[in-house]
């Protein structure tokens, strides 16, 4: 939402809670001062007062509007600063921006979600949205790969999904620890074990660029068509307004034309996996 018609002015939001998800990942709970809502898959530009701002896709349910959650991995200057914040400070939210997942077009279909690493944050929001419309879906399958068991955040989510009608969740890790007795290997290895009617399915891929590339290739090999595969391309979004030029990927402004694209829209664009 725009504050005072000024597209650059953020909405103030109080940081009301911080959840430690892993040694390098925290979820920040924010309470915006004014009404704020988003569609799953859209992103916000979150400002740390006087330090900088960075784009994040909320990991909370789009149905809950009193507050929103943003899951942040400590990666660079702004996120490192964020990880040292304490509840009570005020942050700035600009947005929501971009094109989210067209969940209404998933009605009557089987939804396959292939995720990896940091991609689980926006996927969680999508899962909440799909749970709300599950009577209209055939089934939802999550295949997720994380680097190690400790890097896998939201672990209770997997148990809950496997106990939810029409949902199933599969998890694998690249590097197991001594206690791990689940699947080992990359997320794409989970695709061999699922049962899915590809003719009536859509696939959502969300994660680091390497995972998106290999995941898309595997899905195409399985028989998914270009327009059945949805990709969340999050790449250096800055203004969020389709103006500053930083997120241009070929002819697309990721912040405005995306971040959710079908593979059909992107397949002729060079260097989409960079």
């Amino acid at each position, binding site marked *: 939402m725009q504050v005072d018609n000024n597209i650059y*002015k953020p909405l103030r939001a109080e940081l009301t809670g911080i959840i430690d998800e892993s040694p390098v990942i925290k979820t920040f709970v924010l309470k915006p001062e004014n009404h704020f809502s988003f569609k799953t898959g859209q992103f916000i530009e979150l400002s740390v007062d006087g330090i900088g701002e960075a784009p994040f896709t909320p990991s909370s349910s789009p149905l809950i509007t009193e507050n929103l959650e943003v899951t942040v991995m400590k*990666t660079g200057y702004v996120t490192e600063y964020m990880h040292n914040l304490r509840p009570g400070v005020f942050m700035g939210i600009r947005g929501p921006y971009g094109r989210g997942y067209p969940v209404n077009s998933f009605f009557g279909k089987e939804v396959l979600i292939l995720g990896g690493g940091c991609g689980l944050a926006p996927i969680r929001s999508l899962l909440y949205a799909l749970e709300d419309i599950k009577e209209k879906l055939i089934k939802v399958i999550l295949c997720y790969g994380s680097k190690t068991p400790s890097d896998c955040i939201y672990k209770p989510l997997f148990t809950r999904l496997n106990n939810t009608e029409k949902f199933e969740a599969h998890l694998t890790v690249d590097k197991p620890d001594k206690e791990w007795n689940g699947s080992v290997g990359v997320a794409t290895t989970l695709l061999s074990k699922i049962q899915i009617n590809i003719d009536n399915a859509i696939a959502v891929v969300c994660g680091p660029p390497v995972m998106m590339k290999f995941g898309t290739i595997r899905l195409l090999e399985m028989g998914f068509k270009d327009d059945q595969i949805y990709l969340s391309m999050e790449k250096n979004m800055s203004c969020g307004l389709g*103006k500053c*030029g*930083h997120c241009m990927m070929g*002819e697309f402004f990721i912040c405005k034309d995306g971040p959710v694209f079908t593979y059909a829209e992107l397949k002729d664009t060079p260097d989409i996996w960079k």
Partner: protein
Amino acid sequence: MLYKCIKKEEWDKVLEQFLLSYTIFANIENEFCPDYELIRPQDIPRISYNKPKPATSLKSFFLPVRENVSCPGYDGKPRIIMGAPNCDIEGLSLLDEIYLDNEFSDIFYKRRRENTILISADCNSINKHCHCLSYDIKPYSSEKADIAINYLDGIIVLGIITAKGEDLVNRIAAELIPGDNILISAVERLHKAVEASLVTENEGLPSYEDTGKLVNESGPDIWERYSSNCVSCGACVTSCPACSCFLLIDKPGLEKVKQMDGCQYPGFERVAGGEDPLRELHIRFRNRYMCKYVWKPRKFSSHACTGCGRCIEACIGKINKNEIFKELVKQPVNAG
């Protein structure tokens, strides 16, 4: 276009009157090169008409290098910009599409745009690197300025284009003579002469659309070769009337400062994790031409290059983009 004429001496007095209500910037020919200056009454005789374009493009009046976008800096006082060449007016057209879109209209840009009257000057001569006509952009005023101006034989010829322009002309207390056929014909002859010069000077330069095809199909070698002199100074970006990328910088109190940026600077697309698709110089270099000739044309109806030639004049490494395009024309497809 409706033409009105006024003697030069009378016009200078009109400008003095306008200074009471407007801030006026005009093209002044100084020791080094022509450029805009803020006009005071004593500067009026120095104003240059229809001579080669100002060094600074119109962009700077609407997109300041650095601007606090949390509070209005520009007070909204109306202003007149005189002497803008048509290539700059066309560049503004692209900026309008980007900054005044329906979904996210930039109120700072909008306020400046609404409070500015553009008096475009027909070009009666060309600089060495002017090539607007190759891209179907005329070297004289189009419907996108408010008023067109020509200075011939002691007479100022005003072409009224928009309602805003008409409103300004209506404020002129002095008597205006309707444009007579002799003067208008003289203006049109000048147009044709300049067009002929542009055609001669730019022989072999492909059109805007053809350049897009050539750039899109080109291999990496030609870009590696031409970019070897590039030092990523960003002069091309800064001087370009159509380049408008920027950075948003955070200040305390959740304030934002908008600062012009450029894709030629290293780190333009670098992400927090360290990946940088434009890390390599020749890729960054080619990317700018892909943006201007291939990608922006798919998104916007206005030209992303208006043929002003400033990038060639400004380049420290003496890189001439038109040489690249002429070479691509001669190469077999997919070579280079």
